[in-house]
């Protein structure tokens, strides 16, 4: 049973549109993370959360918002999508220290 799920798995959006990527975890982890993966850059941290109600900026937060309404759910929101946000997005949940993270299958987002 997959412990971290993401929806949608694929998304095509138009420039200027709003996009919401959803993540759900059943690991009961306090920490959750959103990354984007682009060729040549590895994984880059966008936002993370220490628990319900908390969100923190990662290394590349510009153009993104995050929401953590519950222990299980962590959303990434692109209010005004741009083509530069075309990427693969991964959600992860992590143990207390953050070394062991459990990743979702990813969402491929294309912004036209």
């Amino acid at each position, binding site marked *: 049973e997959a412990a*971290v799920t993401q929806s949608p798995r694929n998304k095509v959006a138009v420039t200027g549109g709003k996009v919401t990527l959803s993540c759900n975890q059943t690991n009961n982890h306090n*920490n959750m*993370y959103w990354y984007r993966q682009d060729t*040549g*850059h*590895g*994984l*880059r*941290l966008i936002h*993370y959360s*220490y628990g319900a109600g908390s969100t923190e900026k*990662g290394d590349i937060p510009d153009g993104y918002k995050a929401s953590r309404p519950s222990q299980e759910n962590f959303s990434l929101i692109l209010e005004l999508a741009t083509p530069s946000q075309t990427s693969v997005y*991964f959600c*992860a949940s*992590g143990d*207390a*220290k*953050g*070394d*062991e*993270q*459990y*990743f*979702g*299958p*990813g969402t491929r987002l294309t912004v036209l």
Partner: protein
Amino acid sequence: TQTVSQSDAHVTVFEGDSVELRCNYSYGGSIYLSWYIQHHGHGLQFLLKYYSGNPVVQGVNGFEAEFSKSDSSFHLRKASVHWSDSAVYFCAVRMSNYNVLYFGSGTKLTVEP
């Protein structure tokens, strides 16, 4: 600031060969190191981590990594690779007071039959 460097973007070996994937870091304080594997089209999976003590740590599927403070390295090794080990491998570091990981750019391992 800290950096994680994986100097080899691609490594190709034959099944049964040994392999070493290199990871170097630059940070002066206490850090914790880990390796992750990503099969094509999937998310990352945790392989192993180092906190302290024995510098050689064992992971799943025969992988091990060795920490060297003098070389600022945490190389991943496997004595005999299988075709199913073909994947991208990421090294990651965490500073002691933060719960976030910083990933290297990854090394794509291809195991030829």
